[in-house]
């Protein structure tokens, strides 16, 4: 029982990170029907911006909650700008071409960011400064939760509530939903759809960057290729929840996180080696595509004629 609770906590921790990243995939898909394969790299960019901010601003010397806040918000802002720039210069000029064109461009942007970082910073992992005084709290029995895990839950839940509020309660959020349903109708309302698309990239990128900084507190090793596998798993999470569906991305992220830790924790009991931890997400992807292509919460909205 204790190990089960422990596995669940660990699973929800990485699941929350997947969820944060999956939100960006799902929002961009919802609005442009584009799988932004560069999104996983934004998560990496976020972690690196956080890393350099911590050093530049002198927060790397020891734990500091203020430093953590500054680093987190700073990297979210920087990533938002990077996301907007990618949309503006890579995707917008080719938006009217076939989907395949934008998909291949997205893969190209992803490779560009990864290799640019490798070329400039080297591929070797770097140690992210610990801004949180790590401490572990015993819940009951032997199950424990660490401070960085609490941080991940607190920040991701807060960001998700904020996102929910933006999408469902504000004018710009309503416009996002309008654009995602019908671009031309949205234009006819006087909505500057280019701005809304840009805003969507900014939101998604900021969430991914938060995921990057939070992960780096939990597992303080960052490298320029860290976004590849995490990004792919977050993409699977978005598909599992129903791509384009915001609550679905959160649900999918948490489920993938739990599935992964359970493979590590219990897989051996049923003959699944722990090395399958990265494979389980893709096994889930195949199952989803076979049995429920719309995802758990996704549904097809039919327009009345």
């Amino acid at each position, binding site marked *: 029982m204790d190990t089960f609770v422990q596995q669940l906590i660990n699973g929800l921790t990485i699941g929350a990170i997947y969820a944060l990243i999956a939100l960006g995939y799902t929002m961009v898909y919802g609005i442009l029907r584009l799988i932004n394969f560069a999104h996983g790299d934004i998560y990496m960019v976020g972690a690196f911006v956080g890393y350099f901010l911590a050093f530049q601003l002198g927060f790397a010397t020891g734990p500091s909650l203020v430093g953590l806040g500054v680093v987190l918000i700073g990297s979210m802002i920087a990533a938002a700008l990077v996301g907007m720039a990618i949309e503006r210069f890579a995707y917008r000029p080719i938006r009217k071409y076939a989907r395949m064109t934008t998909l291949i461009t997205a893969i190209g942007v992803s490779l560009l960011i990864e290799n640019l970082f490798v070329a400039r910073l080297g591929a070797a992992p770097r140690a992210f400064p610990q801004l949180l005084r790590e401490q572990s709290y015993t819940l009951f029995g032997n199950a424990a939760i660490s401070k960085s895990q609490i941080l991940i839950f607190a920040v991701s839940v807060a960001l998700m509530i904020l996102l929910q509020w933006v999408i469902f309660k504000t004018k710009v959020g309503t416009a996002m939903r309008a654009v995602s349903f019908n671009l031309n*109708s949205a234009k006819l309302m006087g909505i500057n759809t280019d701005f809304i698309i840009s805003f969507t990239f900014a939101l998604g990128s900021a969430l991914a960057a938060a995921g990057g900084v939070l992960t780096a507190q939990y597992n303080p090793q960052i490298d320029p290729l860290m976004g590849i596998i995490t990004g792919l798993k977050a993409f699977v999470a978005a598909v599992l929840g129903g791509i384009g569906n915001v609550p679905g991305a959160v649900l999918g992220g948490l489920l993938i996180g739990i599935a992964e830790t359970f493979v590590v924790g219990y897989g051996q009991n049923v003959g699944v080696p722990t090395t399958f931890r990265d494979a389980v997400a893709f096994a889930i992807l195949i199952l989803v595509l076979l049995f429920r292509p719309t995802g758990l919460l996704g549904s097809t909205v039919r327009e009345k004629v």
Partner: protein
Amino acid sequence: MLKLDNVSVNYGAIEALTGISMHVEQGEVVTLIGANGAGKTTTLRTITGLLQPRAGSITFEGEEIGGKPTHKLVARGISMSPEGRGVFANLSVRENLRMGAYLRKNKGEIAEDMDHAFQMFPRLKERESQKAGTLSGGEQQMLAIGRALMSRPRLLLLDEPSLGLAPLVVHTIFEAIDEIRGKGTTILLVEQNAHAALGHSDRAYVLETGRIVMEGPSKDLAADPRIKEAYLGE
């Protein structure tokens, strides 16, 4: 108010409009009738900037607007209820109306106009927090018109508002058009239902395969034997 001069529009290599010229004056209801594929919707989509003209000029209140982005034209006072209604099925009725007033800031006036929309179409009031996708076709059309009015347009473009609706609902829609006109809004109405369109408009243009083939006061066209045969089925 609105003037199209020799406007041509292409879909790729296919010419959809060939040098059409027309005008709509302040306070008028002008209708554009024609068969399926004649270019009626293309005309409206070009006026609202959803399509780019290949040649010719479009002016609104004396200023060239051809090729301007759609959201800027809405800001200038042009609004459209699109073909197939284009309501946001995933948004509530109220949110749809709110989006219609996207560019406006004055909350009080927006609330007032929302009440007007509900007065014009009481059915919408009953369903204000329902998702627009759950509405019937007629209710969606009412919503599309109400939403288009929320920007307080000076020129309202209506694309096939009676398409696919039951006769009773068509009647409601045309009553609403008369009411909107009574308040002084200029209307350009595209219709397949030539009978109703000619009965509720001042002037009319007849579009055939991308060209304007006839124009004149609606009551004259309604009496014209060629129109009677081709469009009124008499």
